[in-house]
């Protein structure tokens, strides 16, 4: 024995007094933690992922879960994760895969920013009684207008506007592909997007016919693998997004293991059944910024200049200059995905170590575009680690037009952020293609929950704006005067362009 077995990560125990041996835990655990042995239910805690499915379905609260029941000798540098990665790689010689977002203990900048409210010198507004406008337009805007008054006094508009997406709330759902998530999960979110007047991304998985009823709320994605892309697909979407990179894994392409490529996915993605769908790291027709501008133009040309085209980039060190380059193309919006952005599957080393936080990225993108006098001409969508309405308000105050949520929408459907999405065994029916698991997710209930989440955040956002004496979302955009930094260092506050609390 060289390495031997590692301490189990979780310990599941069943209280024999409470348990009534209904076996719901056995049925529900797709990782094989529970099995029946005569009169007893036996537990293999090593298989546990802390997905909480068993706890959620146990009618008697008989199951308890403990994290790290037997830990390593504590050490500040040689953490459990560091040691286990080495054991794992010493055994396999492979890259370690991981799911969800960045799991290292970086400080969360959002939690060091506080919002403002009015007292005395101006009245706070009451959203119950006064209008608060959250309507957001995503797309290219003119730099100035040709507005003239005719003889009779009528105003004549000489500038023609580019089509914009009209979004009822600045909260949109980001791109999660059919493949990474189940069709039920995608249908549920698409329906929620339609109900709440927002939009949702298809991811790089094409557009399944079950989504067609919601297609006017879908942003179709063109990524480096070009899976599912044809003229029909482009024409069905409300907008088109070119995915250059993703916050969870900047610099590399998407991963969908062949096991997940069933008949339906094969048809939607237009790839053979059972084949791995590994997207190239770059787009092989984009080796420069002018190549990107060409692709933007080509997609616009293909859809007769009727659809907004977004470009999504991962938040990397030079994100501001890259966004400024994108703003000079006919692209309508730049999506900036921070390093906390989630994923179905990514190499752990990328997920945890590559890229920068969305708070800093969106601040520097907004500032750079302003320096160049072109900020209002393009929309900025922030994504990657938006957990609540406060994060939405802070992202907008730092300069975003709107946000994409991903993980939060999955959590609204039951996801417990266990981080095992890449294994395809999601017991919640979200990140899986096993028919028996997929059918656990009822699209009717799930869509209502996602819609509720968006409605609830929208209400909270209206309250936050009203308290700040602002009755329209555009007056919050880039309004960093309404933020203060709490326990942030001076250089970071300069990047964020916020003052410290008390100043």
């Amino acid at each position: 024995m060289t390495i031997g077995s590692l301490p189990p990560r979780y310990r599941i125990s069943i209280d024999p007094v409470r348990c009534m041996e209904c076996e719901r835990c056995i049925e529900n655990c797709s990782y094989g933690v529970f099995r029946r042995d005569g009169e007893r239910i036996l537990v293999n805690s090593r298989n546990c992922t802390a997905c909480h499915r068993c706890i959620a379905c146990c009618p008697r609260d008989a199951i308890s879960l403990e994290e790290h029941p037997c830990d390593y000798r504590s050490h500040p540098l040689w953490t459990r994760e560091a040691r286990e990665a080495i054991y794992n790689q010493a055994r396999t010689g492979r890259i370690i895969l991981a799911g969800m977002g960045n799991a290292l203990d970086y400080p969360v900048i959002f939690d060091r920013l506080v919002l403002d409210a009015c007292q005395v010198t101006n009245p706070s507004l009451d959203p119950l009684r006064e209008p608060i406008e959250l309507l957001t337009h995503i797309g290219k805007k003119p730099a100035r207008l040709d507005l003239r008054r005719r003889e009779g006094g009528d105003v004549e508009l000489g500038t023609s506007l580019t089509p914009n997406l009209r979004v009822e709330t600045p909260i949109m759902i980001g791109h999660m592909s059919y493949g990474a998530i189940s069709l039920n999960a995608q249908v549920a979110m698409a329906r929620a997007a339609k109900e709440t007047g927002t939009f949702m991304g298809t991811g790089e998985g094409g557009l399944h016919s079950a989504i067609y009823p919601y297609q006017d709320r879908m942003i179709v994605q063109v990524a480096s693998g070009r899976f599912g892309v044809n003229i029909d697909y482009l024409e069905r979407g409300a907008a088109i997004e070119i995915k250059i990179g993703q916050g969870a894994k900047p610099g590399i392409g998407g991963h969908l293991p062949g096991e997940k490529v069933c008949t339906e996915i094969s048809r939607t993605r237009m790839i053979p059944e059972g084949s791995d769908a590994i997207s190239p790291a770059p787009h092989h027709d984009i080796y420069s910024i002018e190549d990107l501008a060409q692709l933007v133009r080509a997609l616009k040309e293909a859809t007769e200049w009727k659809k907004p085209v977004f470009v999504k980039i991962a938040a990397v060190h030079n994100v501001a200059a890259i966004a400024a380059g994108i703003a000079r193309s006919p692209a309508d919006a730049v999506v900036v995905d921070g390093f906390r952005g989630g994923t179905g599957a990514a190499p752990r080393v990328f997920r945890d170590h590559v890229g920068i936080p969305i708070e800093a990225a969106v601040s520097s993108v907004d500032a750079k575009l302003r320096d160049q006098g072109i900020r209002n001409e393009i929309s900025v969508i922030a994504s990657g680690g938006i957990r609540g309405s406060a994060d939405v308000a802070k992202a907008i105050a730092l300069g975003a037009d709107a946000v994409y949520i991903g993980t939060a929408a999955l959590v609204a459907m039951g996801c417990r952020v266990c981080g095992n999405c890449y294994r395809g065994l999601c017991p919640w029916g979200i990140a899986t293609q096993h028919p028996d698991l997929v059918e656990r997710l009822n699209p009717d209930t799930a869509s209502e929950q996602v819609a509720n989440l968006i409605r609830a955040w929208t209400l909270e956002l209206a309250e936050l704006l009203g308290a700040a004496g602002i009755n329209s979302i555009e007056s919050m955009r880039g309004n960093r005067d309404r933020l203060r930094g709490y326990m942030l260092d001076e250089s970071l506050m300069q990047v964020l362009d916020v003052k410290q609390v008390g100043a």
Partner: protein
Amino acid sequence: MDGSGIRQALSMMNERGSGEGAGYVAYGIYPDYRDCYALHVFFDNIRENKSVVDATLAQWGTIEHDEAIPTYDRPNLRAVHTPWRYFFKPDPSLAPASTSPEDDIVSALTMRVNTARRGALIFSSGKDVGVFKAGGWPEDVADFYRIEDYEGYTWLAHNRYPTNTPGWWGGAHPFNLLGWSVVHNGEITSYGTNRRYIESFGYTCTMFTDTEVVAYLIDLLVRRHGLEIDLAVRALAPPFWEEIDRMPEAEREWNRALRLTYAPAMMNGPFAIVAADAGTMIGFTDRTKLRPMVVGECGDRLYISSEEAAIRAMEPKVESITMPAAGEPVVGRVAP
């Protein structure tokens, strides 16, 4: 009209001030120098700071005349600056790429001098117009400058209750850039957005107070982007989307375009604002009218004020008094 009437009107509203800032602006007061830009400057110290401004102006044009603005000591007003005025003619050949070289030179010089913070602040820069302001009660400021000695055809005045920068003369209203002057009752909650927007066009905010940005936004929209003043005001205080959606198609389209294009210029928070240039006076409020605005008319005269009492003090025979609806601008044009 000379300045005694508006002094009287403003004194009716002393309850709205705190004796820490007041000011006046008058159009048509410098007929002898009608073609020159009248630059009003606060010097911290004539000996040290004036030569820098003299040299800068000489570099960019000709100083036709300059002098101290006459002032008269008031017991309640501590003169922390020396107010000075230049009558300046910029040399248009120095900004050959510009379509309005003289205006561009003067506004750029104003920004440059004010940003440098070398004990000089240009607070008024239009032709045949002058701002007179200081820290103090309105009557004291009026008497300090003896504004009754000036004859103008349009007057704006303001009484300040400062919370941010008490006593700072630059922070008193009116704010002026080139032809446009602004007085403002309120607090702009969108200031952070507006300031960052206007600064991306080369303006620099130097007065530590929100109203400054209104003068620059009007300059940008009217002078540089060529919008008529009522359309510019509509961009600053646009109708709600709900109202825009109900408009007939052509009207809806241009209102939508205006709101989308100038979203970062839109002003939020409570305000009533009066702005003026050589030919116009316009009053407007925020979209829900969280600050008062009263309009009076008498013959060919237009009065806009926070309170009716002020109008009646100035024009006891006022013929009509109205209160415009939220967001509805009131425009007066100077008869040719």
